[in-house]
């Protein structure tokens, strides 16, 4: 069977080469049949990648340890769901997943574009094929998942902390996000190569960008949640290079989503947008590289990893080639419109972009710093959370405020009098909240207090938008208020979906501020019957239980929780000792308070038959972080929902006759 897998990958590589060559010649000489043939090659490459993936998946599920990859990442005792997740558990498999998603998305993009953006596809297809070529090449020549060996009786197994549902969803979701950013990139490059001055590429890739961005965002929240409940150190984000790897493209994509709106409304920022989409794609490649090649332990392990140099080379090539292309097309991209006023919605979006990009570069600098210093000085210097947290506050707080200002400000030019009127309400709410919070004791963290006040401001301005819009709609068409709201959102899906997403970000901000600026931590060794007091709770350790599960020994410290004299329940933090893997995992106990969103987080650092060393964290409002994820999804869905009227309008503009006939 490995032969079939290898053959399929070679076929995929061949198709990619053909598509690049034929597609380029076809586009250059305007020979339709060549272009179509190249597009067909892309469609077929998906079939080939699918075959290779099925081969690997089958080998995994059949525990075929003659595949080195299967042996390295699974074992007979591993439940099937996690055997499947081992597909992307190792370097070769995750590259195959990238290829599968890439060819899949490319196929869909080709099919859709054939109907609505035929001429744009001419040069877009070879670009897509070029990326497919890179990944197929890696899989064929550098890191094949189909290496074989004499089959041992059992495999090495999967790290126990990866054996949970979050790890089934988190990596594929991130990959859907990373790969998704390839499509806007390819269309942008396609439009530039073809010397097009219109915006069809933006229109065509709008949904792709939004979908990829949503997957990246939600995927990261899933990862954070996994870290919180599984790894259980009491936090959810540690500015680990692997975490940063996904954050950077997401920030770039966020900036792009906003600046593209300016291009759409005012025809400005064309050059900025193209550079951003190139940056987002390059960062997605870089992110994949960071999570897979181990470069960050040190430059030494970088050269041990076979794919490292190739990835870096490809990223360098992509950047050089695409930026050269942009430079050569500068006259085409220059727009005649200028920014009319520093106080306008365009300006707000611009400031937002600058902040997002600045923060993204901050993270990039922090990630690259050890590599640079090692290359220059011989020893790597690492930067830690204090660096990142400083800039998170420096850039994040202004970004929060801008989220509140942007929607309320007019395009082109906003008069100060008009501003005063629109902002009166939200400012009032913010001030009131600030004072209330001060009275409640939020003074312990000044950035926290400022952050909360800004959040109140933004929430007020979003609420105001909904209220005003519904009132106007209601005045226009009568009916019920609920109906007016539904109509309002239905006719302006992107705008109001966007507002919901902003609300989600505010919830996220509140949760992050609460759980990091206002949290409490205590550590204490307790013997049977002893009590410790933390943040209003009283914890009493009773005893330690030992239970034998199928694959592990489960040690738990039984702890009673009380607050204000009331018994709240019993928590059981502890550890699992896994027999096969010879590893210990931490099993933290978390109690979420429904009423105030607070978490009581217990870690049994040391556990003995009659004593336990407890680390206790009280994290206020942390559950808002997870709630934010759901609101985020909802907002994205609203923004993504197809709008028939808009489709028709675009069809007219771009000459799609068949759509008109159906309309």
């Amino acid at each position, binding site marked *: 069977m490995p032969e079939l897998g290898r053959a399929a990958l070679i076929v995929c590589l061949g198709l990619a080469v053909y598509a690049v060559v034929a597609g380029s010649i076809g586009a250059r000489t305007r020979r339709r049949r060549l272009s179509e043939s190249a597009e067909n090659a892309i469609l077929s490459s998906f079939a080939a990648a699918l075959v290779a993936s099925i081969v690997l998946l089958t080998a995994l599920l059949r525990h075929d340890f003659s595949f080195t990859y299967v042996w*390295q990442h699974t074992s007979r005792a591993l439940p099937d769901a996690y055997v499947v997740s081992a597909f992307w*558990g*190792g370097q070769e498999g995750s590259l195959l997943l990238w290829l599968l998603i890439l060819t899949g998305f490319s196929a869909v993009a080709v099919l859709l574009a054939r109907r609505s953006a035929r001429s744009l596809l001419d040069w877009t297809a070879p670009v897509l094929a070029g990326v497919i070529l890179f990944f197929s090449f890696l899989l064929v020549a550098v890191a094949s998942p189909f290496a074989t060996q004499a089959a041992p009786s059992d495999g090495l197994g999967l*790290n126990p*902390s*990866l054996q949970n549902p979050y790890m089934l969803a988190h*990596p594929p979701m991130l990959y859907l996000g990373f790969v998704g950013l390839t499509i806007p990139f390819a269309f942008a490059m396609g439009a530039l190569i073809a010397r097009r001055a219109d915006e069809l590429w933006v229109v065509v890739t709008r949904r792709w960008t939004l979908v990829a961005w949503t997957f990246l965002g939600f995927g990261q929240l899933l990862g954070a949640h996994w*870290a919180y409940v599984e*790894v259980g*150190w*009491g*936090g959810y984000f*540690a500015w*680990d290079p*692997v*975490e940063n790897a996904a954050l950077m493209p997401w920030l770039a994509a966020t900036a792009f989503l906003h600046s593209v709106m300016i291009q759409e409304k005012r025809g400005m920022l064309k050059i900025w947008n193209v550079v951003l989409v190139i940056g987002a794609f390059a960062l997605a490649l870089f992110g994949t590289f960071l*999570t897979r090649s*181990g470069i960050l*332990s*040190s430059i030494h392990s970088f050269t041990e990893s076979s794919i490292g140099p190739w990835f870096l080379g490809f990223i360098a090539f992509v950047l050089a080639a695409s930026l050269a292309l942009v430079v050569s097309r500068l006259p085409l991209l220059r727009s005649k419109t200028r920014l009319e006023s520093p106080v306008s919605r365009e300006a707000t979006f611009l400031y937002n972009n600058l902040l997002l990009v*600045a923060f993204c*570069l*901050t993270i990039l*600098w922090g990630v690259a*710093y*050890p590599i640079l*210093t090692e290359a220059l000085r011989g*020893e*790597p*210097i*690492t*930067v*830690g*959370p*204090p*660096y990142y947290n*400083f800039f998170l506050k420096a850039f994040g707080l202004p970004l929060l405020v801008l989220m509140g200002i942007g929607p309320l400000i007019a395009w082109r030019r906003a008069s100060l009098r008009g501003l005063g009127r629109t902002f009166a309400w939200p400012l009032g709410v913010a001030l009131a909240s600030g004072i209330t919070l001060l009275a409640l004791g939020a003074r312990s963290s000044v950035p926290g207090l400022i952050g909360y006040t800004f959040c109140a401001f933004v929430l007020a301005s979003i609420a105001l938008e909904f209220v005003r819009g519904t009132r106007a709609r209601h005045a226009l068409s009568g009916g019920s208020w609920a109906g007016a709201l539904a109509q309002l959102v239905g006719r302006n899906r992107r705008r109001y979906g966007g507002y919901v997403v902003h609300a989600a970000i505010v919830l996220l901000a509140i949760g992050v501020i609460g759980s990091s600026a206002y949290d409490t*931590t205590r*550590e204490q*060794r307790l013997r049977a019957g002893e009590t410790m007091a933390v943040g209003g709770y009283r914890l009493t350790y009773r005893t330690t239980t030992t239970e034998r599960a199928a694959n592990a020994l489960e040690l738990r410290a039984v702890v009673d929780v009380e607050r204000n004299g009331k018994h709240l329940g019993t928590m059981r933090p502890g*550890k699992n000792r896994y027999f096969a893997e010879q*590893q*210990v*995992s*931490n099993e933290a106990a978390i109690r979420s308070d429904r009423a105030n969103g607070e978490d009581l987080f217990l870690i049994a*650092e*040391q556990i003995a038959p009659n004593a336990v*060393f407890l*680390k206790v964290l009280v994290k206020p409002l942390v559950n808002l972080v997870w709630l934010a994820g759901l609101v985020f999804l909802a907002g994205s869905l609203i923004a993504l929902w197809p709008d028939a009227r808009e489709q028709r309008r675009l069809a007219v503009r771009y000459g799609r006759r068949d759509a008109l006939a159906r309309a």
Partner: protein
Amino acid sequence: MLAIFLVYTAIAGGTPQLRPSELKGRTGEVSLVGKVVGAVSGDARGSGLRFRLRDVEGGKSIRVVYRGSVPDLFKSGRDVVVKGRLESGTFVGTPNTLSTKCPSKYVAEKKAS
């Protein structure tokens, strides 16, 4: 923009990451990367966890004493990172800075606060 970062990192500074073999004569706080060898004794929440650390590639090991959170994956033979400083021949770890590296999996297990 670059200037701001350069200034920040130069002043606030990151921590140099060294291997045990490079530690000799260094004062100040550093991050030590290496492999745990030999027996592990003591209590990280008591008088101190004691172990020896050497370069991942091999070589002489040095004494380390550490107090604070210990990651689950910590054991003899693992690669770890710990911050601290060299004090009369023993590397004294800064509390809650010990983390393990898990080579073939995605995330380095952390117990940072």
